[in-house]
């Protein structure tokens, strides 16, 4: 599916945005529109996932995948932290902040991955949306523990950091939409499908155009990225993603869901985690963690990572599945 995936409109629009930014064009999506589409994507993903779960009911696989997701989000920051400290030569605070990003997930990488997997006949199960929601925040806790962040820090203690972490708008919207999807079921959602289902892929194109612009502009202003950290921003998704796929296959998930677990593990947050880190670990450099997750890892996953996780899952399944 590799080359095929690269030629999908979603990916091409990402490349168009990146190209425009590299050419230093003034092309820009209004911030309010981009924010609006990102909220739309979360509502849509949540509703569709919830609608599917309403059909299948609670299954064994679902619990396994949820547990695996939680464990990955809590634990993936640990090896990442070690790599960032040793190979990346980062100080404790920066290493911890970056590690938290890689334990958490990218909603748009998941959304794009699901579409590409669906295209390839490997649609992940609906409950993977729940796993996505579960994986957003645990890594933040691990990251803060790794940083040994003091609770009496001047701003974080005042800024309601825990709120930022657990009541983050995107997490609430995703979980809430998932719940609404479960309540109303697929038939209950028919009336809203013309907004939340049918146009999903087209909306993703517009959003990825914007992501291309933002990622490339960040890469151009990469004062915080060194060769070492940029390389780690390629290594970490590969390692984490492989781990995710293997774990998914071992747990007996279907090929699509195992690939999706790989995508989640391999992706890095650039929405929820940076907002918390700015407040909780202000000494960590946003240029570094956004540069790594947004400007290197995200494009890598979009163009190569997703295809690799899908390929890996399809090939491991016959060998490893229990």
């Amino acid at each position: 599916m590799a080359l095929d995936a690269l030629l999908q409109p979603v990916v091409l629009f990402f490349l168009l945005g990146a190209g425009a930014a590299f050419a230093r064009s003034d092309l820009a999506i209004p911030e309010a529109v981009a924010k609006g589409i990102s909220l739309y994507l979360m509502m849509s993903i949540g509703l569709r996932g919830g609608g599917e779960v309403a059909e299948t009911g609670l299954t064994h696989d679902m619990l396994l995948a949820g547990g695996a997701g939680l464990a990955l989000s809590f634990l993936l920051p640990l090896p990442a932290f070690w790599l960032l400290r040793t190979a990346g030569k980062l100080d404790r605070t920066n290493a911890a902040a970056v590690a938290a990003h890689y334990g958490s997930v990218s909603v748009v990488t998941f959304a794009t991955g699901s579409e590409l997997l669906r295209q390839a006949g490997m649609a992940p199960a609906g409950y993977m949306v729940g796993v996505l929601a579960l994986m957003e925040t645990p890594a933040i806790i691990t990251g803060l523990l790794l940083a040994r962040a003091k609770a009496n820090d001047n701003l974080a203690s005042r800024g309601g950091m825990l709120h930022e972490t657990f009541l983050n708008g995107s997490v609430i919207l995703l979980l809430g939409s998932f719940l609404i999807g479960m309540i109303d079921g697929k038939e209950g959602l028919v009336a809203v499908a013309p907004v939340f289902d049918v146009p999903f892929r087209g909306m993703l194109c517009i959003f990825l155009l914007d992501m291309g612009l933002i990622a490339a502009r960040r890469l151009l202003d990469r004062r915080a990225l060194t060769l070492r950290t940029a390389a780690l921003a390629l290594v970490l998704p590969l390692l984490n993603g492989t781990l995710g796929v293997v774990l998914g296959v071992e747990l007996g998930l279907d090929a699509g869901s195992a690939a999706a677990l790989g995508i989640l593990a391999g992706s890095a947050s650039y929405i929820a985690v940076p907002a918390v880190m700015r407040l909780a670990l202000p000494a960590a450099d946003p240029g570094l963690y956004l540069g790594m997750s947004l400007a290197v890892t995200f494009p890598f996953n979009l163009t190569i990572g997703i295809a690799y996780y899908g390929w890996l899952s399809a090939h491991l399944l016959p060998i490893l599945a229990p």
Partner: protein
Amino acid sequence: MTSINRRRRIEVLADEPLISAIVRIAADIGIQHYTLLPTLGGAGSHGRWRDDQLSGATAKVMFLAVTGDDHAQAFADRLAPLLESHHMMLMLSDVDVVRGSRFA
């Protein structure tokens, strides 16, 4: 002729996630009233930015409060040690207001 009083105008440019903390610090000191203004972009010692950040983590907001000398000084003292580490900019200037007692 309307009587006019000189007060201090405090402006802090800070990353959006920090604003709620700044509002609380101001409130602690006794500065309860403020206005928030949007920004588009800029450049400083930590590089260029544009307000198109998905996460809003590095989008900046201007906090504006008009207050008396003492409160302004207390606020500056409180914020000064954080300016460098949190990539903020603090500006203080003189401003004349009517109804001086509201801006103590």
